[in-house]
């Protein structure tokens, strides 16, 4: 006789993954809106924001209910705590995507600042991190989670690179400042998305292995 608690956990997982899917799509579409100058895409992302936020509230309610009523132990407990944190990170990824979409809407009518080379690369990296961290949640895959952690530095470097380039452009030509500034914001948002994906990966390691890997510097002290 399968415990109906298992069923509740499964439902919770599904909802988390659905939210992740929405977030992943929002990131992709918002960056596409920037790169293609597509207003419709940007508006689609803004429209999806409510769905993501509603799901966050539902997931938190479910987590609260399961914690109160089932008094879970061990893996179940860690899973629920991890879900609660991942929930927050996914919602913020959604927020970042919205910010990117808003930037896209603002630079629509401006000419493109520079060939988009680094930006697509950075967004691909960030999206891959989001996707892999979610897959790590589905499969309870520690190794996949670790690989996400390693890519965080790459994203940071790309952001720094973009900043330098865009600064140069802004200093050379004041006409492009508005658009370049928005691109700086987009780069910042993408880097933040990478951070949130990293957090999710850390939470996966927490609930699978029971290890808290959030601040390795503390261990070395």
């Amino acid at each position, binding site marked *: *006789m399968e*415990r*109906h*608690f298992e069923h509740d956990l499964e*439902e919770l997982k*599904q*909802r988390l*993954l*659905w939210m*992740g*899917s929405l977030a*992943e*799509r929002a*990131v*992709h579409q918002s*960056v*596409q809106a920037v*790169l*293609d*100058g597509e207003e419709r895409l940007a508006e689609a992302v803004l429209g999806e924001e409510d769905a993501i936020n509603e799901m966050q509230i539902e997931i938190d309610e479910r987590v*609260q*209910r399961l914690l*109160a*009523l*089932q*008094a879970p132990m061990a893996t179940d407990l860690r899973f629920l705590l991890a879900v609660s944190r991942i929930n927050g990170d996914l919602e913020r990824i959604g927020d970042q995507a919205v910010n990117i979409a808003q930037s896209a809407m603002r630079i629509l009518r*401006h*000419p*493109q600042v*520079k*060939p*988009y*080379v680094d930006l*697509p690369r950075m*967004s*691909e990296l960030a*999206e891959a991190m989001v*996707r892999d961290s*979610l*897959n790590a949640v*589905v499969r309870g895959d520690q190794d996949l989670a670790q690989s996400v952690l390693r890519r965080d530095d790459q994203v940071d470097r790309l952001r720094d690179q973009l900043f330098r380039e865009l600064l140069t452009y802004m200093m050379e030509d004041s006409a492009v400042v508005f658009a370049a500034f928005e691109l700086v914001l987009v780069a910042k948002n993408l880097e933040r998305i990478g951070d949130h994906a990293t957090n999710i990966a850390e939470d996966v390691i927490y609930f699978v292995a029971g290890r808290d890997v959030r601040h390795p510097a503390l261990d070395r002290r």
Partner: protein
Amino acid sequence: METTAYGNNATAARRAPQIVMSEKPQTASEKEAQVRFEISDLNFYYGPKQAVFGLNLKIPKNRVTALIGPSGCGKSTFLRTLNRMNETIRNTRVVGEILLDGQDISQLDVVGLRRRVGMVFQRPNPFPKSIYENVAYGLRINGYQGRLDDLVEHSLRRAALWDEAKDSLHKSAFALSGGQQQRLCIARALAVDPEVLLLDEPCSALDPVTTAKIEELMFHLKDSCTMAIVTHNMQQAARASDFTAFMLDGRLIEHSETSKLFTTPTDPRTEAYITGRFG
């Protein structure tokens, strides 16, 4: 590479998102529960001593309602009024109204009432007969005409005991372990197909594994049976019930959905009891 306002070839090469999940998960909608028992202004007396004061409660159909509260708060006493088992004790008095599906139970034939409202007790109390005869007892005394074998098997299956008992149906009930005996008592109560099952601390004499089995059993019985369970184990009430009623000193303090009562109780006394800061 050509620079345009609308991106270049490099961007077209970006992969489409491989979304983790393609369809929104659906929540099965729960039907609004009807009322099975309606208790109005119930007062109960053991001789001159009053044990229950002005209790008002609706017990919903096809749900599990848990009654929690400290020892001596009157929850077992109240439970027993629902199938008039309090009448087996001398000198007790019930004042107030208890309606089962709209009918006043004090006006009903008590034997018929007890066939519709079954009871499982704290300590397993199988009869000194075979497993088969235990389950068949209720059927025999209610004059059931028909294939007893099928009904006995059906009841044992509903109580999740069939697989363990099917080869020893004619052995004594005492050959079973404590947890199995309690499931036998549940099967015995279920044999007459009651609409309601009252459980008076059914797991207090059992180990955690058996307790979990019985709670899971209750979950699956909900569809065909309304249940009311008295328990002094709050975690059990939290895990296994849909609605919870908290009683204190013979009074009903709070009654709401279990998920609400255990996360945001309205009465401070409920909160004190649940968080263990009681007394």
